[in-house]
């Protein structure tokens, strides 16, 4: 199986054959990859021993190593084709979910309103702190599913933003 991995400005071609042998940009690598439970992994490349926390995040794979969080995109051959047809990697969803349970203090936007990426949409109170939930993309507020004083559970859908056509 062939993959293309995009990290920051770099990309790597990584091939894993049916025996689990790994090649990076055509060169063989000796890798031992072991799950330590949950999203914790131990990696020994050649003799170097490292640990990483790896999670999926909306189609991206986030690797935390040595206090640094690096987002990567791992695309198989089909995904590479699809991405090329769409005109680029990385489409972000316009859905805003509750990152934790809590109380909605305020909804600061209205339906139909244009919002910029990073603009505050909802203020959610949890753990004695008020948290501003921001728009992941620029677009138009399509639906609002919550109102002030409502309690929400983790991952509840709060707001949907419809991406601006020219950004999609």
């Amino acid at each position, binding site marked *: 199986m062939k993959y293309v991995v995009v990290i920051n400005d770099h990309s790597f071609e990584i091939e894993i054959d049916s025996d689990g042998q790994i090649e990076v940009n055509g060169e063989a690598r000796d890798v031992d990859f072991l799950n330590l439970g*949950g999203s914790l992994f131990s990696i020994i490349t050649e003799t170097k021993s490292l640990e*990483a926390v790896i999670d999926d995040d909306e189609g991206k*794979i986030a690797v935390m190593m040595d206090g640094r969080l690096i987002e990567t995109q*791992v695309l198989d051959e089909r995904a590479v084709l699809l991405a090329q047809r769409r005109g680029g990697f990385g489409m972000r969803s316009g859905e805003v979910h509750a990152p934790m349970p809590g109380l909605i203090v305020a909804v600061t936007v209205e339906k139909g309103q244009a919002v910029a990426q990073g603009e505050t949409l909802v203020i959610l109170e949890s753990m004695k702190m008020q948290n501003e939930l921001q728009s992941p993309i620029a677009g138009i507020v399509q639906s609002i599913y919550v109102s002030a004083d409502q309690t929400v559970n983790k991952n509840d859908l709060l707001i949907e933003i419809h991406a601006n056509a020219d950004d999609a």
Partner: protein
Amino acid sequence: MAEQVTGINKILIANRGEIAVRIIRAARDLGIPTVAVYSDVDRTALHVRYADEAVHIGGPRPAESYLRKDTLIDVARRTGADAIHPGYGFLAENADFAGQVTDAGMVWIGPSPDAIATMGDKQAARTAVTRNKVPLIPGTAAGMPDDELIHAARAIGFPVLIKAVAGGGGKGMRPVQREEDFEAALNTARREAESAFGNGDVYVEKLLVGARHIEFQILADTHGNTVHLGERECSIQRRHQKLVEEAPSVFMDEDLRARMGEMAIAAAESVGYVNAGTIECLVDRDKNFYFLEMNTRLQVEHPVTELVTGVDLPKEQIRIARGRRMGPTENVLEPKGWAIECRINAEDPYANFMPSTGQITTMLLPTGPGVRVDSGVYTGSEITPYYDSMIAKLITWGETRSEAMLRMRRALSEYRIMGLKHNIPFHINLLNSISFIAGKFDTNFVEQRFNMHTYEQDPTPEELETLAIAATLYAHRKRLLASQVVAPAKRDTSNWKWMSRFERMHR
């Protein structure tokens, strides 16, 4: 004065989390039994498991449990506890509760209700400490008209800070660098204060540039002894929440320590303070210091003082509450070595420090020389949205600041908490930052000059390749697990693959 010794036979701890555990440990070291209280969601909490007795007191919201004064006193009475330790937060600085406890004939392990009330009221505290010549940040009285404020600002000297009387959370607060900007800023501040608090009254204070937050630990007994146990450097904060504390401070010299220590003792004595307390100060670049407030309780960051003085603060609190003389403190005037504390919070530093809730699925604690962890959670603990996001404190000690920092870096890299997001990555990056290592920071450092996305050292090409391999194997493994269709390998040459098959077989 005749030595009056009050017996303490059992202590109720009106708190939860790591501080409840810390107090249980002190009591146990003194051979005193303890009573824990807990809410619905804290049945399995560590303080409940470690205490000799535990009593359920209500629902998960603090108002339904940890803040119920009558219930707490009732539980103390029922269990035969004759003393109450409030920890920090919740009712620790509630003068009414302290009074109720004493009125019920029990020992309050803390200062008198009067001292709590005076220091808890900003204006009363200023009046009290001024009597003992404690320096305050130069400022005006509240509610002056515009023209008088401008005169006052000129007298104080620019830059100044306009603050709302009813203020909080930075609203109605405006820094003014130059006199010509004063009027416009004043109008904005008044408008903002009016709309946010319904009160447009403001006052003007000197704006301290590059100030550090340095505090002094005070210990006072009923025999007229008041001492300080040196300073703590607490400038590493975000939104007025401390994140890292050190003892001593890189900014301190012997002369400043002597002068500030004397001031701290005078401030405590101005209210006849007894027990442990903390004098918080701002110190400007020229080493001028100003009293901010007194915290009339044990501080979160008390362990750094313990590690450089050898004094067990909760034990001293209990000893003083019993009416005894405080332990020997002559040898603590010179801090021994260096201690650093990192607050481990369930907050995601990569998502604007958003609190994170959930179950801790893995918790591997750092150990080894010079490492201490004060924690109230363990593998399997549920972090709920009802309480503070601090789940543990990691403290390291070294002969020098460098040794303490290196041990902290080691300890942070050993610490594994899985199941929720936490701020260990923040601490790792902070401990790698040149400014922090050099001791060059003020209270604005984290918010204005620190960024989780720009690293002191960017990943090398080799590191990026390792990251790429890890991400790919993760994606590949997930795909295999999802598809359930596996072609049998001709030979098992790779552990990761063997592992993924092993996991499937043992589902």
